[in-house]
């Protein structure tokens, strides 16, 4: 370990202040601090600091994503083999999925981190860790057969327009991963929706129907999957979204470590359940009468509310605001599902919509605090007058 440390200190010398590669120090630091927590000591303020830092926080989210990712990889193969009718083992399915998905992850990280590094060097700040999460989220919310170049373009759009244009990590208004998906959705609709994209090779092999449950509901067809399949996730859909079971495991990791907001998650589930229940009573079409509890476990709702809505930068920041924000995401998710036949999934648009309104929600929550303070001042002034 000390050998490696010495080697690194040697390597970093040209990047030090006043040396020839000083400008590229953020790039070197990104690798250095990945291996070692730096030897920086406190200069101002409190002399001791908590063990937590942004790297640790972000890696925790990545850990929480892994169960759903591994299941998504397996499910990609499972959908392909079970629909073509070939005999297969667990390993076959997993390898088929990995063959499709690992390149997407590589492209997402390469393009996204590449842009992050360039901006860090250009702006002279350290590389922020936020993209470690975004870069994994993006492939997980894409259909499996999307061409890699589309992944690359969507990532570039999301990082450049969605994040860096606003000033980088911590400043963005919309969730960057959802920006990537929304961009792909509106730019390449034939690759992002319909009934031919959700299962590996569905567009080239006739035997495969790649229709999602929400898709068939919107088309007025019967749903052939049982509750357990919907919950466990052996259904077609975006890579990471299908298995509510493993998403719940991720959610528990986020809540147990305190990294993800349980207020947003619970709020979202309550909002969606109530909205679904109201539509059940109304029951004018197949999507409306789809049981409210099944709304929670099909499509991207579970993934969205656990991993996308809880992004602390684009969500509401106050505790009260988080409740309101979560509930409204739930309500709008189901409402968009039911009322928008062209696009039977609502959670992406619901979260993006609420991202935009999150600062407004916070504004009113904080305004209440300000009013209390002003009222107190008014009583004092009235008394002394």
């Amino acid at each position, binding site marked *: 370990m000390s050998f490696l440390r010495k080697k690194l200190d040697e390597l970093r010398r040209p990047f030090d202040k006043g040396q020839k590669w000083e400008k590229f120090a953020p790039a070197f630091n990104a690798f250095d601090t990945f291996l070692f927590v*730096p030897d*920086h000591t406190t200069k101002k303020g409190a002399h001791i600091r908590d063990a937590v*830092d942004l790297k640790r926080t972000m890696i925790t989210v990545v850990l929480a994503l892994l169960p759903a990712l591994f299941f998504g990889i397996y499910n990609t193969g499972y959908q392909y083999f079970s629909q073509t009718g070939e005999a297969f083992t667990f390993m076959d399915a997993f390898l088929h999925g990995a063959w499709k998905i690992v390149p997407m992850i590589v492209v997402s990280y390469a393009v996204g981190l590449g842009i992050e590094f360039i901006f860090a060097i250009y702006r002279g700040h350290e590389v922020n860790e936020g993209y470690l999460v975004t870069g994994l989220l993006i492939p997980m919310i894409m259909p499996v057969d999307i061409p890699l170049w589309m992944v690359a373009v969507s990532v570039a759009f999301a990082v450049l327009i969605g994040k860096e244009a606003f000033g980088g990590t911590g400043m963005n208004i919309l969730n960057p991963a959802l920006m990537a998906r929304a961009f792909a959705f509106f730019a390449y609709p034939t690759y992002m929706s319909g009934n031919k994209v959700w299962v590996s090779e569905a567009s080239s092999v006739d035997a495969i129907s790649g229709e999602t449950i929400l898709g068939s509901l919107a088309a007025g067809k019967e749903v052939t999957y049982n509750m357990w399949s919907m919950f466990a996730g052996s259904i077609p859909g975006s890579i990471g979204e299908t298995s509510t079971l493993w998403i719940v495991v991720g959610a528990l990791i986020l809540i147990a470590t*305190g990294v993800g907001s349980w207020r947003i998650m619970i709020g979202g589930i309550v909002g969606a359940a109530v909205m679904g229940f109201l539509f059940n009573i109304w029951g004018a079409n197949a999507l409306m009468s789809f049981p409210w509890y099944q709304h929670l476990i099909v499509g991207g709702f579970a993934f969205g509310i656990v991993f996308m809505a809880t992004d602390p930068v684009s969500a509401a920041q106050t505790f009260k605001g988080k409740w309101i924000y979560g509930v409204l995401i739930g309500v709008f998710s189901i409402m968009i599902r039911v009322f928008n036949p062209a696009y039977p999934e609502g959670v992406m648009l619901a979260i993006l919509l609420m991202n935009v309104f999150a600062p407004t929600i916070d504004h009113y929550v904080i305004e209440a605090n300000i009013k209390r*303070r002003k009222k107190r001042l008014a009583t004092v002034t009235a008394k002394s007058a």
Partner: protein
Amino acid sequence: MSNDIKIRKGLDIKLKGVAEKTISVAPRSKKFAIKPTDFHGVTPKMVLKEGASVKAGEVIFFSKYSDRVKFVSPVSGTLSEIRRGAKRRILEVVIDADAEDTFMEHGSRDISKMSGEEVKEHMLEGGCWPFIKQRPYDIIANPEEAPKAIFVSAMNTAPLSADVEFLLKDRLDDFKLGLEAISKLSSGKTHVSVAGGGSGLLDGISGVELHKVNGPHPAGNVGVQIHHVDPINFGERVWVVGPEDVAIIGAFFRTGKFQADRLLAVAGTEAPNAQYYKMRIGSNVLDLVGKIPSSVRIISGDVLTGDQLANNGFVGYYHNVLTLIPEGKDHRMFGWMPFMDNHIPSMSRTSLSWLFPNKRYKVNTNLNGEERALVVTGEMEKVMPMDIYPMQLLKECMASNIEKMENLGIYEVAPEDFALIDYTNTSKIEAQVIIREALDLMIKEVG
């Protein structure tokens, strides 16, 4: 009882190296110093020149913008050096101490027969005024103003801080005298808060509002107590006095001498003897604890709010604790991984240390990460037991938006109230520095 305060938010950081409750008389320092930098916002105007001989309690400088506020020598001796920093700013006024003190005599006074104005004048003349601090802004009080209340927090909750009951147990009478004196400074109430779980040493105190405070740090911060008892509005002033300072003031009225003796808790894992020392304000660290290796950080004050000192530096004017902890200038391989390095305390549950709430930790000064943009939300609120949105206030402070800062409660906070935010926040921002700069801006713009 309605007078009690229950604090729920906050964090007790349990550290190793608690000062043992025995008292040694520290060897008398050869050099003492008064550091104008301890008095935030004060520009010193020197009265004495280098080489002048000085008595204990004799004025050595006064505040340029408030000439009634005088600063006196803690010992008698010779003013040997005025150490200056950048732009000739005075950093330390050093006094070579005589073996025995000769005091300026102000005469014993009977407080009960004095008016508020007389008490104030006597304190200003005797050099006791710097003990009176004001909120908002956390600076020495302006004697021309009238406070709506006076607060004394007779409890400490900061990590490794001195036990106030231990500080006061032998000078309870002076403490009561001091309370009687400062009570006369305001037409409003005088509030004294004590720790809920204490021994009841101060229970019988009369003439003041007594509050029992329960809860984790920062429950002992006077600003938190003010917020829960009588919050500060725009234009209002509250004066605060440290508990031992009250006793020093009391002794001054009793004897007529400015005898600024303190008990100093020497604490932290690197302290040669973690115990209490009896010493005079302005004592030299080298004389007190001896030679300390450079791999140790010497902090005058507690680990959250104190000032770093050199080995030959001088203990801060207001400080009751000297903390010595190791510097953390080393690398930790893959230390950013969740659940790694659980020997470092963490409020976040991404470390396992939260499973052991009663374990005491050895800490160092490593930043445990690097500064980043503010990303995580909701963590600052957990250590801010006031009806204030800390992150929003910090952001407005960074933007120097005065109206928004007022709206969000800048008058109710002091840097020390944001110390735990310094400690816990994921992005490693310096919240205390931001608040201090914002308060300075408010002094300039609003006053």
